[in-house]
């Protein structure tokens, strides 16, 4: 904002605000730094020291172990594919459904909204859903990770709400210009809703990226396992090693240790963390209204 805006209380507020947010940022990130540090530390160090930000002995053994099985890279590809395609799918389905529902005059609208809200609270559960997926012949197909979660009722309602908030004058103006409904959606509503779309793209993408349970249920073929399933298997080896199996099954090659668990978190998290800064430019204040008017 402009210079004349500055006042003493305003400056005091600014200073404490910057301080507070810096501190908060630090508190938020420190544990993750510990995890990164731990992923480069030796198992012995992790057993000995409770927390640290810099490992005494630096080693990449954990990463070497994880990437020694080349199947990890393939699972990264599966995850990226499911995340990208799945998110596109989510957005198309969510937007096309939210847009008509944002019209207060649409007959049958409330019934449909009630159905959506109801399904958000009541669900059939794991086995009935599995049977549907099986009957649709989606088992062992990556579509099983995409289609059954095509719309989140929660997200749908919020997107619908955002659409409803758009100034009605814009639509009227466009309609006078002879836009069809689809044209209106494509030319006016979507550009105006960029921050919203970016937000829900992020929500959906994170959901896809972190989802392992559907894959565990629906995908038997390890060639199609996403990264999270693979990483869980690696972590589980170390748990199994502590328990019953190690004594019976020495064909366990090398039970991963603490640092591998941490490396697994780093590998599983960093790619999706990078999505947000990339989307952030769509959140810049006022950009949109200006662009529409200009």
């Amino acid at each position, binding site marked *: 904002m402009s210079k004349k805006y500055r006042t003493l209380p305003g400056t005091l507020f600014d200073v404490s605000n910057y301080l507070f947010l810096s501190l908060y940022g630090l508190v938020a990130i420190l544990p993750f730094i510990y995890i990164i540090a731990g992923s480069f530390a030796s198992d012995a160090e992790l057993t000995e020291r409770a927390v640290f930000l810099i490992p005494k002995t630096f080693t990449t053994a954990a990463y070497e172990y994880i990437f020694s099985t080349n199947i990890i890279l393939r699972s990264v590809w599966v995850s990226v594919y499911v995340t990208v395609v799945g998110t596109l799918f989510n957005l198309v389905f969510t937007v096309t459904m939210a847009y008509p529902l944002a019209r207060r005059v649409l007959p049958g609208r409330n019934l*449909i909204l009630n159905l959506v809200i109801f399904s958000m609270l009541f669900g059939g559960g794991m086995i009935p859903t599995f049977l549907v997926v099986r009957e649709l012949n989606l088992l062992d197909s990556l579509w099983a990770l995409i289609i059954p979660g095509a719309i989140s009722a929660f997200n749908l309602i919020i997107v619908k709400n955002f659409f*409803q908030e758009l100034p009605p004058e814009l639509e009227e103006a466009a309609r006078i210009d002879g836009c069809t409904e689809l044209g209106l959606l494509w030319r006016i509503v979507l550009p105006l809703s960029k921050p919203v779309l970016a937000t829900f793209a992020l929500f959906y993408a994170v959901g896809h990226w972190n989802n392992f349970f559907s894959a565990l249920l629906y995908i038997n073929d390890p060639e199609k396992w996403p990264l999270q399933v693979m990483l869980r298997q690696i972590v589980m080896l170390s748990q199994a090693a502590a328990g019953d199996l190690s004594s019976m099954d020495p064909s366990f090659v090398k039970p991963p240790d603490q640092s591998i668990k941490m490396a697994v978190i780093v590998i599983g998290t960093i790619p999706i963390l990078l999505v947000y800064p990339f989307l952030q430019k769509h959140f810049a204040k006022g950009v949109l209204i200006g662009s529409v008017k200009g």
Partner: protein
Amino acid sequence: MYVLLAPGLLYFIIFKYVPMWGVLLAFKDYQPFLGFFQSEWVGLEHFRVFFTNPEFDMLLVNTLLLSLYNLIFFFPAPILLALLLNEIRIALFKRTIQTLVYVPHFISMVIVASLTYVLLTTENGIVNELIYQQTGEKIDFLTSPDWFRPLIIIQTIWKECGWGTIIFLAALAGVDPEQYEAAIMDGANRWRQTWHITLPSIRSTIIILLILRMGDVLDNGFEQIYLLLNPLNRSVAEVFDTYVYMVGITQGAFSYSTAVGLFKSIVGLILVMGANWLAKRFGQSGLY
């Protein structure tokens, strides 16, 4: 319009309503092998067992209190943070902080729990060592019933607050800068700008999130609580979710957990509809 609606509607019918027969399992003694039709009908038996459980009152109180604390302390936190971020003028700083505070969302609850332990345990816990040096005493953060709810709230705020701001930042992005300029012309200070321009612009988002939040008042996030629960704080820590899990270990409990889920859903539906009705009464847009 209806053509646009069709794919979404089909999706809800196929993947949400076709499997919906699953809720009927609450009235059966469902055995996977026997299948739906062969399993025995037991009527309201599972509900009877659930409601007559001597611990039911304790579970209800614990569940509701935790939800209430969450609503009071956690729900406003992302809004506040979003407003604070909104006041930042240096774009780079703002983006950096935004990115930093959203990182904890990706750290699994298991890690959060183990960090909580490392910080707070009475055996060389970092925080407790500091307290010990100052006061010569240690605090039973992890086993004392008094500390359980505050700890849950703190964990939740740390983990989800930054993530929660994203949706408000999206709403704030829609605010027309001209409004602020006009307000400055009128001599409004920053507090007044926030109160009269910023907050109203995200009000409907806040309300809708609040209404939707009502739907899971009886869900408390199983994993987080389970990891912090122990026999010494069980009197305040045990909630429906953890209890059903425990029962599930001793008996296959498909039907029982479906029954409890159904109960939670019905309560959720009533609360969502009630909150929506209230919002409408106060002239807000609500869910529809």
